[in-house]
């Protein structure tokens, strides 16, 4: 109680100095919180966008598929996988897919493509590619059962750059050539262009096509087998939990990949972007720490005589050390409360109204994924607690040397100090 009283009065003794130092700590924390909030939100949006561009929060694949990407690693029976995934409350959808490389030809020209065999009824629910807002022309795929004529070529849905390259328009006939699973000679099948999409991602717009799953399975002689079951979640943060649960519960011969592994390039780009933010904040924290160190050291040097007297009348070195650290702690806690207040205020503003990044679209492109419109702030209690602890800990660490210095004073010399 005595130490607390002395510490508090020492903090308010030099009001201007304490306000400047505490203000620096508060602003640093507030900046950290709002930057983390905006960064986490934009990264989560990018991840969601990447996940919805033909991937999933969690992918269940044949063991080894991620490495080889060949039809040697298949999910033999997707139905139990889909059924188990759908039982999990965090799961919003589980869709089967076949992914294979192929060649799309018009007779006059051809282009290599990545073919995605999808369920036309389920895919629009989980895929940004299939979403109406990404559709440049036409319609999405129809299930084979809904075709007007039995022997009519199946629908194909292609990227706008590919359409331009091959000079394909809606209703045009095209041939897709793929290698079946049994290693026999390439199989070709005719398709009619049903729709054209534009995602803004070159890789997709130039070389991605979607066809009905059953049609592709038949062409590849896969039977019911698929290359992946894409599991979509209601909340990105549940990824690890669902991936873990599926990995434990599904039979062997399957690999369960969270999006961080399935979309490694995107994930690493997000991590790198985070690292840049942390580096910048690290520099701000270093400057803040030097400021606190300077303030505390100045405070201790100024009170050399006072500390000498306190030692002379029986104050122990540990008590002096504790006094200086308590002063720093009080300053840090007050600053943290103010910093949290400012940070949360800015967060609420950003979370409510968002920030228009239309003009900054170039800056919000990671691994080909471009964010558009507005970004918001997403701040969890854990982030607030974590960074508050970091700030308070840095304040205490930067005060250790000044506190130690106070304990090294010799009472006789300190009392003479002017």
């Amino acid at each position, binding site marked *: 109680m005595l130490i607390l009283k002395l510490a508090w009065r020492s903090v308010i003794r030099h009001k201007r100095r304490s306000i400047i130092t505490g203000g620096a700590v508060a602003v640093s924390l507030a900046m950290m919180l709002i930057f983390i909030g905006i960064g986490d939100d934009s990264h989560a949006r990018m991840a969601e966008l990447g996940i919805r561009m033909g991937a999933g929060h969690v992918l269940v694949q044949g063991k080894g598929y991620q490495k080889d990407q060949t039809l040697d690693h298949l999910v033999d029976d997707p139905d139990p996988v889909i059924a188990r995934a759908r039982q999990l409350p965090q799961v919003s959808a589980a869709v089967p897919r076949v992914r294979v490389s192929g060649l799309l030809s018009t007779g006059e020209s051809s282009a290599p493509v990545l073919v995605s065999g999808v369920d036309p009824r389920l895919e629009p629910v989980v895929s940004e590619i299939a979403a109406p807002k990404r559709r440049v022309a036409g319609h999405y795929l129809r299930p084979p059962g809904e075709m007007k004529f039995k022997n009519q070529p199946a629908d194909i849905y292609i990227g706008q750059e590919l359409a331009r390259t091959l000079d394909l328009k809606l209703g045009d006939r095209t041939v897709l050539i793929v290698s079946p699973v049994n290693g026999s000679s390439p199989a070709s099948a005719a398709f009619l262009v049903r729709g054209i999409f534009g995602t803004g991602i070159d890789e997709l717009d130039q070389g991605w096509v979607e066809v009905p799953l059953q049609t592709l399975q038949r062409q590849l002689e896969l039977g019911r087998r698929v290359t992946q079951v894409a599991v979509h979640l209601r909340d990105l943060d549940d990824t690890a939990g669902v991936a873990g649960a599926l990995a434990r519960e599904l039979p062997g011969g399957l690999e369960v990949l969270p999006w961080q592994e399935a979309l490694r390039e995107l994930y690493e780009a997000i991590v790198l972007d985070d690292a840049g933010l942390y580096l910048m904040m690290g520099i701000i924290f270093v400057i803040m720490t030097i400021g606190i160190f300077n303030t505390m050291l100045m405070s201790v040097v100024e009170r050399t005589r006072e500390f000498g007297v306190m030692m002379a*009348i*029986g104050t122990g*070195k540990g008590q002096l050390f504790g006094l200086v650290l308590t002063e720093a702690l009080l300053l840090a806690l007050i600053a943290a409360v103010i910093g949290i207040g400012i940070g949360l205020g800015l967060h609420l503003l950003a979370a409510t109204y968002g920030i228009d990044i239309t003009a900054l679209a170039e800056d919000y492109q990671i691994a080909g994924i471009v964010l558009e419109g507005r970004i918001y702030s997403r701040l969890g209690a854990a982030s607030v607690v974590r960074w508050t602890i970091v700030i308070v800990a840095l304040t205490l660490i930067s005060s250790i040397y000044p506190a130690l210095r106070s304990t090294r004073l*010799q*009472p006789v010399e300190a009392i003479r100090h002017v």
Partner: protein
Amino acid sequence: MSDATGHDGVIVEAQQLKKVYRQGTVDVPALRGLDLTIRKGEFSVLAGSSGSGKTTLLNLVGALDRPTEGSILVDGRDLARMGSRELAQMRLRRIGFVFQAFNLVPVLTSYENAEYVLLLQGVAIEQRRKRVNDLLQLVGLEGLEHRRPWELSGGQQQRVAVARAIAAEPALVLADEPTANLDSKTGTELIQIMRRLNQERGVTFLFSSHDPKVIDHADRVIQLQDGLIIADSANGDRVTAGQEA
């Protein structure tokens, strides 16, 4: 005051006490091997000109500094054998200090300054309150309990310092030139307060001064010169240096 004194009521017993300060490459002797005994209840003054060794001797007796040679027992305990933590405990529990420049803790009020050592000792709140109020009344500071040091005159600050020095009921109170920063009237009043505490409460005082008016109030005058005791007088009788008072 405490009865835990050494044999025959001896509180301070210094033998062949030497203190040498090193200034650059030069050794400067401040005390040259003096012997000193202070008994319980004494009101003694260390007299001598500036540089005679008064403050050095008080610092050694007060466990603020260590002798270069010789031994010094306070309250029967050899300070030379104590670690810094034990010395701090010694200062907290057995020795009170009054400094020339008052040296109150600036962020604490009069009451809190006087209470400070009791808080360090962990004395219960009721006992603290009673003792501090009693002391502040004794030194004539009723009504000024909640004032900070800068709101007090020099004489008032030094009274707070006296209250602080005796609050823990130490075996010995050391005062280094306690009236040097006070006008003569205030200085005399302060010495009278200390004298009254000595007579009424049996507090043992050892203080330094070169002010003849202050020295006149002491029972015993220990005259220092060049780090040695050259005279030791008690009740007006001159005693040869080195002899017991």
